[in-house]
């Protein structure tokens, strides 16, 4: 099945492919059992959906698009982005504000989305990794052909290994461009200290950021 997949199709994401493949294999493993809905894509909860108990309406402007949703007040901004709006580019690492994998921009400032409630941000502008670059297509899809300069620099300088921290690193790095920051590598390291990389890609991350800052 995997061999049949075309190398790149704009309407087929890796996540959608893997979800479908996992669902198909689960379905064959369960042959003879009752039909399952494992492969069914989850729909983002819209405000028109029947309200869940205790849910409150929230309107977020995410990557330029207004999202009217209902969330349990306990829902963190991180879980809202990932589970309700299906923007899974933002990652959950420690879930306690220590690793930076969940970094997004709220009204242009970088924050840890795991330590913020979605309901706190009613009416506010949220930018995630999916919203960077000129290639943003809406519905959580960017395009590799029109990366933000910071995304391109991370690719050029190999600023990652496993990639799990990368979206948080890039969101932090893009925000850093607009913050008071000295010219040295040490200044960048200090202001990037809220983003942990277990693979230790720090030298390449700093090189990528410095390349963008110097406009080279």
């Amino acid at each position, binding site marked *: 099945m995997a061999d049949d997949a075309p190398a790149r199709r704009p309407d087929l994401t890796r996540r959608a492919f893997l979800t479908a493949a996992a669902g198909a294999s689960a379905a064959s493993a369960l042959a003879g059992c009752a039909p399952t809905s494992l492969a069914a894509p989850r729909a983002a909860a819209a405000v028109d959906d029947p309200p869940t108990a205790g849910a409150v309406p929230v309107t977020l402007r995410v990557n330029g698009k207004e999202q009217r949703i209902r969330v*349990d007040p306990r829902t963190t901004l991180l879980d809202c982005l990932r589970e309700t709006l299906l923007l899974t580019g933002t990652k959950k690492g420690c*879930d306690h*504000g220590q690793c930076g994998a969940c970094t997004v921009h709220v009204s242009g*400032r970088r924050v*840890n989305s795991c330590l913020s409630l979605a*309901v706190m941000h009613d009416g506010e502008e949220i930018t995630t990794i999916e919203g960077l670059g000129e290639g943003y297509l809406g519905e959580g899809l960017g395009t590799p052909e029109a990366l933000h300069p910071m995304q391109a620099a991370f690719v050029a300088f190999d600023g990652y290994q496993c990639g799990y921290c990368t979206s948080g690193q890039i969101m932090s790095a893009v925000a850093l461009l607009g913050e008071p920051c000295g010219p040295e590598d040490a200044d960048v390291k200090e202001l990037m200290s*809220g983003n942990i990389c277990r693979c230790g890609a720090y030298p390449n991350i700093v090189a990528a950021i410095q390349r963008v800052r110097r406009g080279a």
Partner: protein
Amino acid sequence: MRTFEFTRASDPAAAVRAGAQAKTAQQGADVRFLAGGTTLLDLMKLNVETPARLVDINRLPLGAIEAMPDGGLRVGATVRNSDLAYHPTVERDYPVLSQALLSGASAQLRNMATTAGNLLQRTRCMYFRDTAMPCNKREPGTGCPGATGCWPSSGPASTASRATRRT
């Protein structure tokens, strides 16, 4: 995280009234003000804080940094750490304050954390944060593993925590 009611204060007086409904002001308070959330939500995830109601004060007009006639500086409750640290007056006249703020936490947390929240921040002690362990600050009278060692010799709390820790 336990369920809670989320409310937003319309003005500072309403926030004070809402806070006054809590049966205690400190430990175990069932009403908490929510500003940056960087400590409160962290502790709520750990069930160390279990408020029944949160009062969001982020939209109150408390975000100003004002020079006072006597030469002092008045810092609003919801001024973010980063805004305070990089404020020109603070950088010029209060460089130690600026440097201290920039020495703490991360850039993301400094963008969230507020001046009032700093004053209300709870201890970062790992025993306080771990409900499987006794802690005099969290539950007065249960003991302090920081003073007596990790495995206090008696008491129901220590027995429970020993069982939890060894499995």
